[in-house]
């Protein structure tokens, strides 16, 4: 209504509105980058209102409107302006303040994180200057925070590493990656007082608006190094002890060998003389000796020979512990047959029924298995001597997947109450004049099967017979 008479003021007003819109868009882009989305409509409204006011005034004056009307219009526009400003404050300033507070709390959290970390944390800028450190850094290196900020990080390294480190840093900055602790080198740190200590460092790049920074977490590993050194020292000590103990054992073993050599040689020499000369007496001087004297001489000879056998058996027994096992696939049935053939002299003139059952092959030392059969079969032959028909059975039974070999006879047997003595060295359950022997045979059997990882045991009944069982180690008995 005001402008009806002339179209000019309308055109001017519209043009200035367009210009104002463009200006606001540009200004908003430049200055309020982040908030421009929210600010934009308000700014448009605010500016448009201002421009419209100015244009209105201009047109009003041109049109020669009464000052009162103009003043009314001015007031209306000013009211709009105020309202707009309020809107700006509420819509823009408050969120900005809120953001600021958030940023402050984030920084506080970051600080807290930095300070609560157990390790020293040093944040370095692209140029290798220290940007931020935590309290641990101060404690670890002995510098005050203010002394560190802004200076090259190399101050924390021993002199000899510094030059190289600059190169490392440059290389790292060109290709920053996260490098976990313990992956990199073990380095040394340098305290303000010049002392050094071993450190481990992890690196991680952080990109910020202010550019690339590198966070390095530095751990003092003196304690760990000391512990490692201690472990190494203890290990070396242990190794040394093992070496010494082994040497001692070897020496003892040598001594034992020398001892048994000596026993075998020196102990037998007097026995040889006793046996040899009494034999000469018996062979060549018998006619000049009374029968009683001959009997006594025979006793001297028998006893010397018995002692010779004892010495031999004892040596054989002790040798078992020293001799290495020569395990291979063996056929116990074949070994049993060979052993029986070797014992032929003990079978002459007797009626003996021998049954050899199915004996699976096994992994064992053939010479030692033969010794087991020799001892068990000569026992069986010996203790069935008074049977009209001796029966000896060699067999195998599977018990719990284990192959149990046995040698069974129908001889004199023994009372089971003495079974615990059976496998002891020099233990005998029969009088020497009834059944000869040294009491070492079954001890040898037990030692041999034990060395194979097996067991030996026996069952018997007095005057009915005995059965001796043995295993040769569970794992590789079959196949």
């Amino acid at each position, binding site marked *: 209504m005001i402008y009806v008479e002339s179209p000019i003021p309308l055109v001017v007003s519209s043009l200035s509105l367009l210009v104002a819109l463009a200006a606001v868009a540009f200004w908003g882009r430049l200055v309020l980058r982040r908030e421009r989305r929210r600010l934009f409509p308000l700014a448009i409204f605010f500016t448009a209102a201002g421009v419209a006011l100015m244009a209105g005034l201009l047109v009003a004056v041109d049109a020669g409107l009464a000052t009162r009307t103009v003043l009314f219009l001015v007031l209306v526009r000013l009211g709009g302006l105020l309202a707009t400003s309020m809107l700006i404050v509420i819509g823009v300033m408050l969120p900005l303040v809120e953001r600021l507070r958030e940023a402050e709390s984030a920084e506080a959290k970051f600080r807290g994180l930095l300070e609560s970390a157990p390790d020293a944390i040093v944040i370095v800028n692209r140029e290798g200057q220290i940007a931020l450190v935590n309290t641990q850094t101060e404690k670890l290196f002995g510098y005050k925070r203010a002394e560190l900020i802004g200076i090259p990080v190399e101050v924390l390294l021993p002199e000899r590493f510094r030059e190289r480190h600059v190169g490392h840093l440059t290389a790292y900055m060109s290709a920053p990656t996260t490098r976990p602790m313990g992956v990199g080198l073990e380095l040394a740190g340098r305290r303000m007082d010049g002392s050094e200590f071993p450190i481990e460092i992890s690196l991680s790049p952080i990109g910020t608006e202010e550019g690339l920074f590198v966070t390095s977490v530095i751990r003092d590993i003196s304690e760990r190094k000391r512990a490692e050194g201690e472990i190494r020292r203890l290990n070396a000590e242990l190794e040394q002890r093992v070496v010494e103990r082994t040497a001692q054992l070897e020496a003892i073993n040598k001594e034992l060998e020398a001892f048994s*050599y000596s026993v*075998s*040689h020196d102990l037998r020499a007097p026995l040889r*003389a006793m046996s*040899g000369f009494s034999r*000469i007496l018996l062979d060549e001087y018998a006619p000049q000796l009374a029968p009683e004297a001959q009997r006594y001489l025979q006793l001297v000879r028998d006893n010397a020979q018995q002692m010779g056998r004892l010495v*031999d058996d004892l040596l054989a027994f002790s040798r078992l512990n020293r001799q290495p096992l020569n395990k291979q696939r063996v056929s116990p049935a074949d070994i049993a047959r060979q052993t029986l053939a070797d014992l032929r002299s003990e079978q002459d003139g007797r009626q003996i029924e021998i049954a050899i059952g199915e004996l699976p092959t096994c992994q064992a030392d053939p010479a030692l298995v033969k010794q087991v059969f020799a001892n068990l079969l000569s026992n069986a032959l010996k203790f069935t001597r008074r049977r009209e028909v001796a029966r000896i059975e060699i067999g195998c039974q599977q018990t719990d997947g284990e192959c149990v070999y046995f040698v069974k006879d129908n001889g004199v047997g023994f009372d089971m109450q003495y079974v615990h003595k059976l496998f002891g060295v020099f233990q005998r359950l029969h009088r020497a004049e009834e059944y000869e022997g040294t009491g070492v045979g079954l001890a040898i059997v037990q030692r041999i099967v034990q060395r194979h990882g097996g067991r030996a045991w026996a069952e018997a009944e007095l005057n009915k017979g005995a059965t001796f069982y043995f295993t040769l180690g569970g794992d590789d008995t079959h196949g």
Partner: protein
Amino acid sequence: MADNYVEILLVEDNPNDVELALHALKRNNLANHIHVVRDGAEALDFIFCTGAYAHRNLANSPKVILLDLKLPKVDGLEVLRQVKGDPRTQAIPVVVLTSSREELDIVESYQLGVNSYIVKPVDFEQFTEAVRQLGLYWVLLNQPPSL
């Protein structure tokens, strides 16, 4: 005694064993050309014609050596090693006199080319068996050396 009559060299320090061995040999008419030495050093002197035996001729080596293992001065294994290590003497058969199975093991472990073993005391049965193994009937028959 002309040294070319020495057929058997007995190396033995134990006087009882010497006597028993000689007795066994004598009883079987083998003691005529036996020479006894009492330690390893003397054995080496005799075999290699050195020291007290420098006058001997190495060509007239004994036809068989009966060698004890545990000897004073130089032990039996060392004597054996030297005899078997020298081309002039390595053909001489050596019968080791062992006290026990234990000693036999020691000899075997050295693998010194011993020809036979006799476990003491030396009875005639064992002795002839050793000689049979060696194929040295000519020693028993007292034939002249044919080396």
